């Protein structure tokens, strides 16, 4: 999973719903088409949230999701690509 190439990273660790998605939306808006954003979140709900977002939004593709353990806390990683 770590070998996924990404262009930018967004750290929303500590933030709760709806902020991970809201901040990611803003960040994606700044990126060019085709660029990949890696999002780091500690919000357990963000896993389903990003899936829901990718399902609804036309210009977003959720490439992969991953879970890691960091300092005994779960870290949820999302790779989003801005599409046309």
């Amino acid at each position, binding site marked *: 999973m770590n070998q996924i190439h990404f262009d930018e990273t967004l750290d929303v660790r*500590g*933030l*709760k*719903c*709806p*902020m991970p*998605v*809201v901040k*990611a*939306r*803003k960040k994606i808006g700044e990126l060019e088409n085709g660029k990949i954003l890696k999002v780091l979140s500690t919000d357990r709900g963000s896993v389903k949230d990003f899936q*829901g*977002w990718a399902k*609804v*939004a*036309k*210009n977003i593709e959720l490439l992969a999701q991953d879970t890691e353990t960091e300092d005994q806390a779960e870290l949820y990683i999302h790779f989003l690509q801005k599409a046309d």
Partner: protein
Amino acid sequence: MSVSDVTSSGKSVSAESLVERLTDLETRLEALEESQPDDKVAIIVFSGDLDRVLAAFIIATGAAALGQEVSMFFTFWGLSVLKKRNSLADKNIFEKMMAVMSPGNSEELPMSQMNYFGVGAKMLRKMMKDKNVSSLEEMMEMAREMDVKLLACEMSRDLMGVGDEELMDGLEPAGVASFLGESLRSRTNLFI
């Protein structure tokens, strides 16, 4: 004529009649597409309760993040959310009573339950802060940044005697028809 009639009648169908039917279908498809809802969400905020208004703004900012065009209509007690202060100037006795007894801005909103004269609302805000949940004010700021439309119901504003100078800047006055104009084209409509 159904599709099976065309195929069963074989060569007897003329090119003109096919073109005619195609044109008819195109017109109907266009009308159908026209009647589909847009990527919009319309929310009526009737309540002036902190907990309910929080829910409204979480949904609004979330929907905006998902690429939806969001309109929020604030009416009745919901108007308190948009206030920056209470003013007693140019008000009659009833309007003054309304002003004195209602919150002067979003930070003074009570809880719908367990409010206990504002202690409950303060406690909820403290708990939100401790757990790193964005405050109502942060969410309102975020909503404006994401171009969520905030509309103030003109009739209830006038009825309760809330002056323009008491409300935040940049609001659009609105009536029931302008709300319905949005809601009828929206995929999701909420009354909170």
